[in-house]
């Protein structure tokens, strides 16, 4: 009985530590990246209004300083797209999240953030940045790409 108890306890402790550390490290990395992106795209704004098609991610954005999550696309400064959202007729600034979303929306999106092979990848699309008249700070210039 004691042996069983110790094993179960050990399993749950390890699982808990592993999950928490994995989740915490990815989440904190994401938070840092998104905070940098929004600050770079809207340097003048004290409050950036964000709309997201993924409600769980809305919670992440709401934790960022100077960010307010809005329910309607029309109220947003930027749309954070995570899924197959129709963006063809949208006049709002779009940021793609996820590799497939980024590849699909590179004609409209100003940039994309995704995890590839376990590494965080960030890309800003040069022509869309110019279209929006955005000049990124020096620290993010290395992420600007001519994406066809």
């Amino acid at each position, binding site marked *: 009985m004691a042996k069983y108890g*110790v*094993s179960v306890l050990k399993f749950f402790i390890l699982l808990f530590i592993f999950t928490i550390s994995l989740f915490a490290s990815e989440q904190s990395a994401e938070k840092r990246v998104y905070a940098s992106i929004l600050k770079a795209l809207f340097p003048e704004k004290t409050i950036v209004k964000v709309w997201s098609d993924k409600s769980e991610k809305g919670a992440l954005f709401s934790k960022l300083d100077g960010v307010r999550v809005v329910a309607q696309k029309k109220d947003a400064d930027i749309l954070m797209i995570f899924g197959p959202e129709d963006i063809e007729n949208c006049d709002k600034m779009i940021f793609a999240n996820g590799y497939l979303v980024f590849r699909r929306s590179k004609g409209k999106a100003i940039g994309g953030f995704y995890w*590839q*092979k*376990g*590494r965080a*990848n960030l890309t800003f699309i040069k022509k869309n940045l110019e279209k929006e008249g955005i000049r990124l700070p020096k620290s993010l210039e290395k992420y600007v790409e001519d994406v066809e």
Partner: protein
Amino acid sequence: MKQLNIIYSFFVVLLLFVLVYLYVRLGDFELQAKKNIESVIIKNTSYFIENVEKNIKQHVKSNLYKSLKSNPQLRKELETNMGMLITPSFKYIYVLYRDSAGKYRYLLDGSKEEKGLFDMKFDIDTQAWDSVYLSKEKKIVTQDDVSSIWITTLYPIVYDGEVQGVIALDFSTSLFQYISKVLSPLKDIFLYVFVATFSLLVVILYQMFLQLKTKRESITDPLTKAYNRVYLRDLVEKINLYNYDVAMLDLDHFKKVNDNFGHDMGDYVLVNFVKLLQKSIRSKDIIIRFGGEEFLLFLYKEKKKESQATEVMQRVLKTVSQYNFVYENSSLQITCSAGLVKEAFKYNSVQQVIKKADERLYSAKSRGRNRIVESDISACVDRLSLGAVKQALDEERLLCHFQPIFTLSTKKIAKYEALVRLRGEGEKLYYPNQFLDTIEGTNVYRDLTKNVLEIVFEKIAEHQIAMSMNLNLSDIIDNSIYEMLIKELEASKSLAQFLTIELLEYESLANDILLDRIVAIKSYGVKIALDDFGSGYSNFSIFENLPIDIIKIDGSLVKNIDNSKTSYIIVESIARLAKRLGLVVIAEFVHSKAVLDVLEELDVRCGQGFYLGKPDILMPTGQ
């Protein structure tokens, strides 16, 4: 119990060492096992990557980027070949090149998931990749910052001495988990051993803690947290009196504190008194609550160093007298008195030392309190040390002077009183007040008493005349002296009837043991006299409790009997009382004819004094 604790402690320490050793060994083993597995995997990896490089170089003879860019079909073919290496452990395999801006971009990607496109940027740890470009050597990178990857092997593709791409093989963490799984049973065994050992350790420690706690509680006074008499009992067994001076302390007028302020205040005073003591003494000194408001202090003394006991005690008295005890709006100042015994090693036992300290404490009380008494008599008296008395005994310089005691009606000598003397190294004589206090409670005192008894019996045998000698009542209580006395009486049975023992300091002692012993002594025919009766705390109940034969009226009453009405009445009363009780009366201090006349008028049976006969070394042979 102490030995048991040492054994426990030994096992505890041993277990700790075993645990630490096991832990370190298993850690080493795990590390070594991982290293071995890593090296095997890396070796295999190198083999795979070399094959990939070989395959690429077979298809691309030069200028890797241009060749691949211009030939999508070749890329597809090469990626298919690379993809065949993908397993749950080999998660990703791809080839990157470094562009002119220093960014890394895909040339080929054999991965089945998250496939990168040709020329697409890939954000990786550029530092490690740059180093491969620079060194043109293979590199193993541990991916601490990449959650699903354990290690990445980087392998340069070199054309004409120039790195044109780097093959990367990512190992998934599943391999790492596999290694952990292999080691898991070992870890489990260690865990169970650890838990069992640790539990045992906890039980042992808890048991030791309980033992110590119980022991501590049993030897500690619950109110003051000072040691109690149980501790003293143990201490007596093991203490080395060469290392300690002993003081008995008592709070002055403490009863009044309880009476006037209540027992809560009394308790408060006791608790804080002990705290003050603790502040005033040194770490090696010991405080014991001896009784009510009496405390024993064992004051540490380093061998061959001057005792600091007096300074410590003075500090204690000063600290206590200056402290203001404040309790529930009441405040008071209190003093304490102390009896101090230095050179405690000269005494037979700790009990003797404590008794002496107690006597000196009462001496301090009687001298006005708030003081320390550390000797028995005034310093101006020329005293012999314990060693000097012992030497005098060894060198047979003990002698007795004999003072005659007359039957007043016949003017004949009824007996002699033996009075002890010591001859100094010259011809100087030392009297009892110069050495008895020093040797009291020691073996020397017993030896001296024995010698006196032998002299007395010798003189009795020689002259067939009655003799008396002095003993303290406490001497009868003392086992060693009593046993010696009985032994001497047994040896001189026929002479014992000529012996009278004059008891001193009898006012405070009367109990069953004493009564039994006096009866036993009297059974040899020895007579018992009360010396110095009528002074001090003479208690008439002594006649009820002890079988007395003779009363010796104290000299202070007798010497003024011819011109003090009070003395006259007291002596008359004592003489009448003695007559009614059937006791013989002896008047001491008969120093003149006038005194002798009055004693005869009062029908006092016997007399002793300078007028009748001085103590002398020679035995008188006639009247």
